[in-house]
C-alpha cells in the first residue's frame, strides 16, 4: 500500500485500527471495550501470572494432543480412502457429514461419555480438526499422476516404498493445506471445549474474567490466543510455500 507516494510497511492498517480502539475505549462508551493501552499493560502483567501459565499449558497440551491424533489418524485414513474404492465408499459419507456438522452440539454428549475433563477437550479438538485433514489427504492421493505410480511399480517398488516415497510426497501439498485448515479448526475446538466444560484452561480463565467484569484481562487473553493461532497458521503456510516449487508442476 502507498500513501502520498510513501510505501507503507505491511500491516500498517493495524495501527489505524489500534487508534480507533484506543479512542473508543477512552471515550468510555461501553465498559466492554477498555482502551487498548490498558489491555496491553494488562496483557504484560497477566502473562507472568500462574493462572495464565497454567491455562496456557493446559490448552497447549489439549491442543497438541488433539492435533496429534487428528494428523496421525487423519492422514493415513485419507490416503487409504484415496487408494481404495471400498474404504472410500464406506467412509466418505461420514467424513462429509462430520465436516459440515455443528460439532459444538456434540460436546455435551462427549462430556457425558468421557467426563468433564481433559479427555473430552482433546477429543473435541480432534473432532474439529480431523475431517478436513482426511478429505485433503484423500484429494491429494486422488490427483496423483497415474504414470508416477506405474513408474514406481515398474522399478519394483514394494507397497511400503510406494506409500512413503511416492504417494505421501505427491499428496503432500494437499495434506499440508488440510493440516493448516485443521489446525485453525482445532484452535476453535480446544477453546469451545474449554468454554463448555469451563473448568480448565482458558475456559476457566474466561469464566473468571467475565464474571468479575475484568474486560481488560479478557481482551488481553483473547489477543494472546489470536496471535498464537495466527502464528501457527502462518508457520504452516510457510511450510506449504516451501514445497510449492513442485506442487504446481506435478
Amino acid at each position, binding site marked *: 500500500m502507498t500513501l502520498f507516494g510513501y510505501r507503507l510497511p505491511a500491516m500498517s492498517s493495524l495501527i489505524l485500527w489500534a487508534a480507533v480502539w484506543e479512542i473508543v475505549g477512552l471515550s468510555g462508551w461501553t465498559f466492554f471495550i477498555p482502551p487498548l493501552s490498558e489491555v496491553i499493560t494488562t496483557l504484560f502483567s497477566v502473562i507472568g501470572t500462574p493462572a495464565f501459565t497454567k491455562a496456557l499449558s493446559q490448552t497447549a497440551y489439549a491442543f497438541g494432543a488433539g492435533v496429534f491424533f487428528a494428523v496421525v489418524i487423519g492422514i493415513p485414513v485419507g490416503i487409504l480412502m484415496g487408494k481404495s474404492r471400498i474404504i472410500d465408499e464406506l467412509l466418505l459419507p461420514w467424513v462429509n457429514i462430520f465436516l459440515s456438522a455443528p460439532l459444538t452440539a456434540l460436546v455435551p454428549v462427549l462430556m457425558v461419555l468421557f467426563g468433564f475433563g481433559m479427555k473430552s477437550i482433546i477429543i473435541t479438538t480432534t473432532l474439529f480438526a480431523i475431517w478436513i485433514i482426511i478429505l485433503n489427504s484423500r484429494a491429494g492421493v486422488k490427483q496423483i499422476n497415474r*504414470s508416477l505410480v506405474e*513408474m514406481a*511399480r*515398474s522399478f*519394483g517398488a514394494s507397497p511400503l516404498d510406494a506409500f512413503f516415497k511416492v504417494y505421501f*510426497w505427491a499428496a503432500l501439498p494437499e495434506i499440508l493445506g488440510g493440516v493448516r485448515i485443521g489446525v485453525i479448526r482445532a484452535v476453535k475446538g480446544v477453546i469451545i471445549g474449554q468454554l463448555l466444560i469451563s473448568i480448565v484452561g482458558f475456559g476457566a480463565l474466561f469464566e473468571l474474567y467475565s464474571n468479575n467484569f475484568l474486560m481488560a484481562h479478557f481482551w488481553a487473553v483473547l489477543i494472546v490466543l489470536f496471535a498464537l493461532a495466527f502464528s501457527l497458521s502462518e508457520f504452516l503456510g510457510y511450510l506449504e510455500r516451501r514445497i510449492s516449487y513442485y506442487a504446481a*508442476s506435478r
Partner: protein
Amino acid sequence: MSQTSDAFGKADPIDIDSAVSVRGVSKNYGEVEALRDLSLEFPRGQLTSLLGPSGCGKTTLLKIIAGLIPATAGEIEIDGRKVTGPGPDRAFVFQDFALLPWANVLRNVSFGLELRGVGKSEREAVAEKYIGNVGLSGFEKAYPHELSGGMRQRVGLARALSVDAQVLLLDEPFSAVDEQNRRKFQEDLLALVRNENKTFIFVTHSIEEAVYISDQIAILLPRPSRVSEIIRPTSFRGTKADNIRRSPEYLDIVDQIWASLRNYVE
C-alpha cells in the same frame, strides 16, 4: 530391398534369437477389445518399433510386456521366463516422463536403484555416469520443472539405463519433445542400440521415426488390434546416421508403410 515377412509373428523363429516373445496375447478392457491373439518376437540386441495409429493398443501391449497390466489371454516370455509382473530385467521410459517433481535429477536417475535397495553412494555413482551419458552433466541438482521437455526425457532415459535392464520399453518417448531435440534423441538412440547390448521396444506413431531407428518394425492395425506386417530395413542400418534419411530404401519403406496405414486414417 526390405524383407517383408508375413504377419502374426510367425517370422522364422529359427534364425532369430528372441529376447522377448509375445504369444497369443489378448486384452479386453471390459467391452473394449484392445488386443486380440497377438504374437510377436523381439530379436535380442535390436530395436523393434511398434507402429500404428493411436488407439490400436501399442501402450497396452508395452504395459503387458512390462508386467504393469495383466493380459486377458496369452503369455509373454523374456529369456524363456514367463512374465508375471514387473521385474529387474525390464525398464520403462514413459511418454510423460514420470519424474518425481520433488526430487532433483540425481535422485530421479538413481530412483530405480534406490527401490532395488542399492546403497546411496553406489547408486549415485551409477546415476552420475548415465547422467553424463545422456548429456546432462552439470544438471544433477536441477529439479524437473527447471528442465525442458527434451531434458526431462533424458532424465527418464538415464533412469531406465541405470538399472541395467536387458529390455528397455519406451512408450512414445519423444512425442512431448520438440522437433530438433527429437532428431538429436533419435541419433543418440541409434548409438545407444549399437553400444549397449540391450533389446529395445519402442512405441511410436511416427512412420519416419520408426523407419529411421528400427531394426524391425511391427505395424499394428486397430479393431481388432493385430500385427499386420513386420518390416526389417537392411541396407541403411550400417550407414552413418546422417545418410539414413537419403537412402532409397528408407524412402521406399516410408512410402510402403504409409500405403498400408492410409486406409486407417479417418
